[in-house]
């Protein structure tokens, strides 16, 4: 994968974390209300009821505080996941000790379900550990809570076995669901990076083919004239003049010191930020304009499913193995032969990308295994046919 997408993928996760935190908060509140109603109706000791109420309130208040701080510092959202997971287990264990009934043990499953809402790998590990630890602790040290009226060896073994089986299927399920969710984040982040690089490549090819670059002087001259007239209409002194001058110097790659000498009330950080407003080279504004142009010319139709056909790969499940083999051979040969205008891949990097990035999964497992085990043979075939120059 691209290194660049890691941050963006994390950013995507954080964007959804706040909503998940709201859900968890609502569930905790519901759990508190139902527990208290039951305890009051069933005549539990008041100090037990109050102790649990305070416990719930601490976890809930902590949640609210973290949500408030998380608006400015997103790490609070992250912290909230772990603290709430531990808090909800602490509350469940407290309920089990207060109730002293096997029926209360099932509250642990609710704790698991609430924490599973975060759909986070680290939370999942904490969640599994806490569930397993709590279940084992109860079975070993507090076996009287499971001392049913009709208890026998079969029941005891059955409870232990199926509890472990339940935790196992929960773990597998949570793991794959989290991975599945990450697939979407991956694809979106990957598409963003692909778009970024495709625009870069398009700019390179455009300049190679049309043999021309953006006419910066003309762009700025016309913009200055426009802003002059626009300011006159508004009966203002041209407020754009200074910034336009500064941007022009940035476009012309003037040394930073010279720009700062001329515009002393700007800082280096201002200049770095304003680089995104340049239209030349591969600067951001040009990319915005290109994206805009392509958004117009594409027919963005009705959204289709994340179907196999949408997914570009040589591993579509309905394709025959021969087709998959041939397509990989064509792809590999084209990369080795090289296409004028596309950056060249060296041998080691090609192998690395094909065997240890998402590309590994774009090829049928049998085919990519053959490549992984015989990449030298592939290279020898290429060198024999294309000549030594194929070895880059």
């Amino acid at each position, binding site marked *: 994968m691209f290194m660049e997408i890691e941050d963006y993928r994390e950013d995507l996760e954080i964007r959804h974390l706040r909503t998940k935190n709201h859900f968890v908060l609502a569930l905790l509140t519901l759990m508190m209300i139902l527990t208290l109603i039951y305890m009051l109706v069933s005549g539990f000791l008041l100090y037990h009821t109050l102790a649990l109420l305070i416990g719930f309130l601490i976890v809930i208040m902590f949640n609210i505080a973290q949500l408030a701080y998380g608006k400015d510092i997103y790490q609070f959202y992250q912290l909230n996941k772990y603290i709430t997971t531990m808090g909800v287990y602490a509350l469940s264990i407290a309920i089990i000790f207060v109730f002293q009934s096997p029926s209360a043990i099932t509250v642990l499953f609710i704790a698991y379900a609430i924490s599973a809402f975060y759909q986070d790998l680290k939370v999942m590990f904490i969640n599994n550990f806490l569930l397993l630890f709590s279940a084992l602790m109860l079975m070993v040290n507090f076996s009287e809570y499971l001392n049913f009226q*009709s208890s026998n060896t079969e029941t005891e073994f059955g409870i232990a076995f199926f509890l472990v089986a339940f935790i196992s299927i929960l773990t597998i399920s949570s793991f794959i*669901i989290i991975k599945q969710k990450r697939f979407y984040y991956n694809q979106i982040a990957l*598409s963003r990076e692909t778009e970024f690089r495709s625009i*870069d490549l398009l700019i390179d090819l455009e300049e190679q083919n049309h043999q021309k670059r953006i006419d910066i002087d003309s762009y700025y001259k016309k913009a200055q004239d426009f802003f002059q007239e626009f300011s006159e209409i508004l009966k203002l002194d041209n407020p754009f003049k200074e910034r336009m001058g500064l941007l022009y110097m940035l476009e012309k790659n003037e040394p930073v010191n010279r720009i700062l000498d001329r515009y002393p009330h700007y800082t280096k950080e201002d200049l770095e930020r304003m680089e995104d407003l340049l239209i030349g080279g591969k600067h951001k504004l040009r990319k915005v*304009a290109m994206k805009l142009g392509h958004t117009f010319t594409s027919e963005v139709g009705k959204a289709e499913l994340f179907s196999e056909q949408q997914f570009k790969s040589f591993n579509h499940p309905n394709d025959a193995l021969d087709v998959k083999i041939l397509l990989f051979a064509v792809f590999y040969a084209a990369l080795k*032969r090289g296409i004028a205008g596309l950056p*060249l891949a060296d041998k080691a990097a090609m192998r690395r990308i094909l065997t240890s990035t998402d590309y590994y999964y774009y090829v049928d497992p049998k085919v990519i295994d053959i490549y992984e085990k015989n990449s030298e043979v592939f290279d020898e*075939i290429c060198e024999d046919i294309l000549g030594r120059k194929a070895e880059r």
Partner: protein
Amino acid sequence: MKTFFRRIQDAEFLPIGEVRKLKVILVMAFLLLITAATIPFSIYFAYPDYVTIIVLSSFVLVYGLMIALLRMNRVTASTQISIIYSIGLTLFYSQGTSSFYAYLFFYITLTIIIFYQDFLSYLSYGLLILALGIYYIISHQEGLALAVDVPGFMYIYIFTLVLFYLIFFAQILYNEKLHSDMNDDWVKMNQVIDKYHDDITTYLELLRKQAKREPLHEERVFQKLVGELAVFVAEQVKDKGKDIMNVFDLYLYVHERGIEKILENEEISVQMKRTADRLNHYLFNRRTDMYSMLINFSSRFLETEKYKPSRYEYHIQHLAQYHDEQLIAFVMIYQYLVREVCGVDAWDQMNKVLTIDEIDQLFKSPEIEAFFSPQLIALYFENRDLFISHFVSCLVEKGGTS
């Protein structure tokens, strides 16, 4: 086995269909374990021996059916049967014993249904399990209670089962919405990326023609290389490499004749037409998935600017802090749109420049919200004539745009 575990570990890279298959295999492995454990447990169940034997034999048969369906790539059918199988196991346990572990089975089956993350399955089968679970709790109270238990313990069992169901119901609904939104974004983004790739392919073709090179698929050296590589892989995978050359010949034939003529030809078998149709998505004579994958792969070797948080940001409000900067950015982008080539024209030449009408249309489209604030767009339409007089009229005089 190693490959299988690697696929589980890296499930985030696999397409949905592959993950679905993985899920079924995992559930089947789990059910196999549970079914094996059911044999000794069934000794304690309150069934006559012949019922136990019939039920266990049915489980073995249904398991065989699941394997057969999976081998035939009928993943959806295997999914449904694995759920029904779990419900069958739950019924077998819950009707055979009143122990606490039979109650755990309701959670296990719910988890299996949750695992598939299918809303309708969860709604239908999940509700069925919930109803069976509640019935079980009410009818087997004595097996679930201590000698001295808390008052209304039965309600705690029911309440936790229902809450467990509801929490995961909310989670599945939330995931459906989230995935659907992300799916829309992804599809839209891919359509725009395909458009970039269309233009990149056109430029690559121009460069090839300038270099006076043959199209890649017509180069003898390339054909020989593909043939040798394909035969080598086919020999390793299938112990027989010659057949692959027929597929390669078909691939070249699709380039030469075009898919329409092949599909119209009644002498060509249905199987071959199907293969030709699949190969049509990977040709070299236009932008296809093959070109897109080559472009994506090669672009990994492009030197790009260092990562900064605005890397994937295209909204002017997020790129420019101040209103005057936003207006400057808008003016520059406007100039770019009226002056620069943005795709192929009606004659398939790389000369398309947007007209004023098209720009107006673009600024009125909903997609514009992803780039500019409504205030900037309103400012443009209020001062449209000024924009045209400064940035377009002079180009029209030079014959640059209409």
